[in-house]
């Protein structure tokens, strides 16, 4: 029988191939059935043991991120609001309860951070990146990253993720996904709005500076000193749920 191939399926395949460097399933030690570490073998194959990040410079660290952030992303992947076929395949038939347990388990993992790889970008570009992270770009309406993600960029409870400890390619591809609608959150989708206000050069500068910062501890802050500069639907949903 002929198989029908969607245009977007093909595009997705190509995108996934381009983004995903070969990975090696690396598990530490023997898995014991009926433990969360064993259940999550499908996740840690790419995201690294305990979710510490993949070895290939793309798959992000999920360990230690706020549980509400991880839960939101799992729900978005399952519904296709955040489009990435391999994640959607895995999550298709999962209950909300299990997604929450998965989010909480990874949130509770604190494996050590690898040393960041030094950025190959020129110093002037990295300086621009640092400036955007710390001060934003008021002319374009881009707020500083630290205004929401915390002064140490280690995330803020309950649902703002850390920005340090992530690979350059992962960060820059998220801006691409927000810009072209492949990563959506509940409206108002603050990160999509911010991404559309930034130039490709700025995205690269921010990704370069963030990914080259060393991380010693990434415990999320418990709150922000001042109200956040923008409204974000995914944060409000968490507040409503609590």
């Amino acid at each position: 029988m002929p198989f029908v191939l969607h245009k977007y399926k093909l595009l997705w395949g190509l995108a996934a191939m381009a983004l995903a460097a070969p990975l090696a399933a690396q598990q530490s030690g023997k898995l014991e059935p009926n433990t969360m570490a064993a259940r999550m073998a499908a996740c840690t194959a790419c995201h690294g043991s305990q979710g510490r990040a993949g070895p290939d410079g793309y798959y992000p660290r999920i360990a230690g991120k706020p549980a509400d952030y991880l839960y939101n992303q799992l729900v978005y992947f399952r519904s296709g609001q955040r489009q990435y076929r391999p994640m959607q395949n895995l999550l298709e038939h999962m209950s909300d309860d299990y997604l929450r347990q998965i989010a909480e388990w990874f949130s509770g993992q604190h494996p050590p951070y690898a040393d960041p790889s030094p950025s190959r970008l020129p110093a002037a570009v990295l300086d621009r990146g640092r400036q955007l992270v710390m001060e934003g770009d008021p002319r374009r309406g881009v707020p500083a990253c630290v205004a929401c993600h915390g002064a140490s960029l280690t995330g803020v409870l309950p649902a703002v993720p850390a920005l340090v400890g992530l690979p350059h390619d992962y960060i820059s591809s998220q801006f691409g996904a927000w810009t072209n609608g492949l990563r959506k959150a509940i409206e108002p989708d603050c990160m999509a709005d911010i991404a559309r206000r930034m130039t490709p050069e700025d995205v690269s500068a921010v990704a370069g500076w963030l990914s080259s910062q060393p991380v010693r501890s990434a415990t999320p802050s418990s709150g922000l000193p001042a109200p956040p500069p923008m409204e974000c639907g995914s944060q409000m949903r968490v507040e409503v749920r609590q």
Partner: protein
Amino acid sequence: MNKRAFLAGLALAVAAGIGTLFWLGHREHDVAPVSSIVRPDESIQLVERGRYLARLGNCMGCHTEPGGAPYAGGRALPTPFGTFYGPNLTPDPEHGLGRWSAEDFWRALHHGKAPDGRLLYPAFPYPSYRYVSREDADALYAYLRSLPAVAKPDRDHDLAFPYDQRWLVAVWRAFYFRPTEREAAVAGQSEEWLRGRYLVEGLAHCAECHTPRNRLGAMVPEAGLAGSLIGGQSWYAPPLTGDRKTGLGEWTRQDIVDLLKTGISRHSHAAGPMAEAVHQGFQYASDADLDAMAAYLKSLPAAGTDTAALSAAAPASLMELGGKLYEQHCAQCHGADGKGQPPAWPPLAGNLSVVAVAPDNAIHMVLSGGFAPSTAGNPQPHGMPPFAQALGDQDVAAVVTYIRQSWGNQASAVSLPEVRRVREAVR
């Protein structure tokens, strides 16, 4: 003069042929229509009954898109003829079933016709739903009427020519659809067996995936539930017949109930479309209904699929590469002996998805990985990692060949085109 008479005769014959096709394609059986007989005091029970039945039949499977409003339509159903999009079933008057009567709904399920007489594509499985009783149809209707209306327009099907010509459905029906009120009477079968057959052949529409189809997508009824590739999806629905190796011959009734209720059994896990059927449907069914379905399935004789799946040994070099990869990537969970550690990790020795005549399911699992559905009976399933990026086509062919020909499994070796076909579909 003769020529004229000949042409006139020919035209008449063609017209008669078209007329016959039209009649065959549109006929309804001549039993007097039963009208809805619902008393108001029954309506709440009826809605609950309908909710139960809608789940059992997994109506959401086609009529709810991921993340979308329940029953508001939009889910894509890829088929060899193009992609169908399930329509909106909520009571919205403009875009849903708001203007449909119970009679209209029954006619759609039973005769495959819209209220205006338009013939429905059999992607809507009315060749199975024709067996759904009027009482159950009314309950489903009552339940759908109780949902919040969602003003979401239906998405047009995206079909290749000539399948996009809806009038051709009449021709298809003339050949392949017989309106029937109920299944053939049988003597000496228990109430339980009859209930099981009613669910399996009707609302649960098992045959739509598990019965082989011909080139025009019509099920081949005499083949029974002998297993079939699901066109357009790169999944294989295994035989539900009594065949010992490739079917349910070695499964007990309880094994079948376990799989339907929890998504896992000691033999194998539900994956792909079956994982969805369990997750959205069967896990909510009563034990009595699941047991009845199992009783009916266990009564089906072997269909000869064991012999059909038996294959010659693969080249030693392929088995050697496969064995090495298995040791490296698979043995930790599935064991060097292929016995797995059920219920966490399923066995591969004797697993229906592994020994099937088509290797699609095993290839699919290796490429995409996946979790058994999370259900009340198995709330925290174990996950299988995806290997689409770690293993190339040759490696996938080798490792799947290895599991299909080890520990007593004797299914065919896997070719590169078979791996590529599945890889295309999972992208």
